[in-house]
């Protein structure tokens, strides 16, 4: 339902989406530390110490981006990391950051 099918985003756009909020940051950290995690939205919210209501819109952003995927299992909707897409997105971010100058960079 939320599978991302969109025009190619730039590295900087991807970065803005990934780090668009603290909750999105928490979700990224959760799934990067635990790439094999498969859970419901409720379960994911509990794992980052949040309520489902606060998490669901942030989750949608990451589902739209494609870094997370959703699937129906029995009566539950589960979310999990799309490892291949995650790798591609982070590579785009890395490529973008190679061109960015940091203040005081050598």
């Amino acid at each position, binding site marked *: 339902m939320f599978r991302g099918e969109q025009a190619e985003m730039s590295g900087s756009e991807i970065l803005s989406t990934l780090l668009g909020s603290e909750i999105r940051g928490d979700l990224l950290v959760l799934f990067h*530390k*635990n*790439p*094999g*995690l*498969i*859970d*419901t939205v409720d*379960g994911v919210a509990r794992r980052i110490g949040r309520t489902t209501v606060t998490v669901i819109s942030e989750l949608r952003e990451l589902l739209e981006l494609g870094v997370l995927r959703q*699937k*129906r*299992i*029995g*009566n*539950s909707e*589960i979310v999990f990391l799309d490892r291949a897409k995650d790798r591609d997105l982070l590579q785009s971010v890395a490529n973008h950051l190679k061109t960015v100058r940091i203040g005081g960079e050598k």
Partner: protein
Amino acid sequence: MTAARSKTGASGFDQLFPGKAEENSRVKTGIVELDEMLRGGFMPGDAVMLAGSAGTGKTTLALQYLVNGVKLGEPGIYVTFEELPDQIYRDAKNFGWDLRKMEEEDKFRVICTSPSLMLESGSDSLLDDVLHEIQPRRLVIDSLSHLEMFVKRDDMRIEAYRVIRYLKTRGISSVLLWESPQISGGSFSVTDVGLSFLVDCIVALKPVEIESSMRKALVILKMRGSDHDKRLREFEITSAGIKIESAFSNYEGIISGSPRKVASEKLMEMFRGASEKQKKA
């Protein structure tokens, strides 16, 4: 023309050279002494129950089985219901096993989910994608005991059977962890919900107190279609994983929880004691 299969699964030609062919078809744990106890390893496609109380080394043994499988070219999956993958990666690193690297190479996966989701899976299992992705030969479920919390007691056997059948029909050799508060007596039953009969092999781990120190014992309680070592062997968890030592040949009653020295050993001790006294006198 299909050759008749022996009780151990070997074909007619294989029966001419039973040792070699059979050894090659076994699923090796990679722990040399354990594979010897199993006469070469587990039978391919078998569901193995690894039972023991908390802290006996079930997770370590299960991980070691998978890691050694990866070294043999057999991808594996570790399904956990309790610990997060992050914790599993850290624990494995202590033994020198880099699970993240194996995952990057698509030879391994740590899957963390809830028992309720595992039970909800009908025709579309939550494991389908990952099985398709890495085509595992081995899989560990840590633990089957967690499923018990989510089903009625009478349904546990059916649910366990569903999981075991799902894995067997895909040709996966599985190790199913079971937290067993006590394994005692000569019974094959290590669970109180009748699961012992569903699995092909049962390996039991048990802490034992001998001369005021805690030691660990491993025994193969059951192995369908194959001979196996019947002795209780001591094992320890080293910095490189499980290491299996010699059999507890000087003791009896270990499984019953009341270990005592065998009569011949007691006699030897008495002789030694008397001899020492004589020397001093």
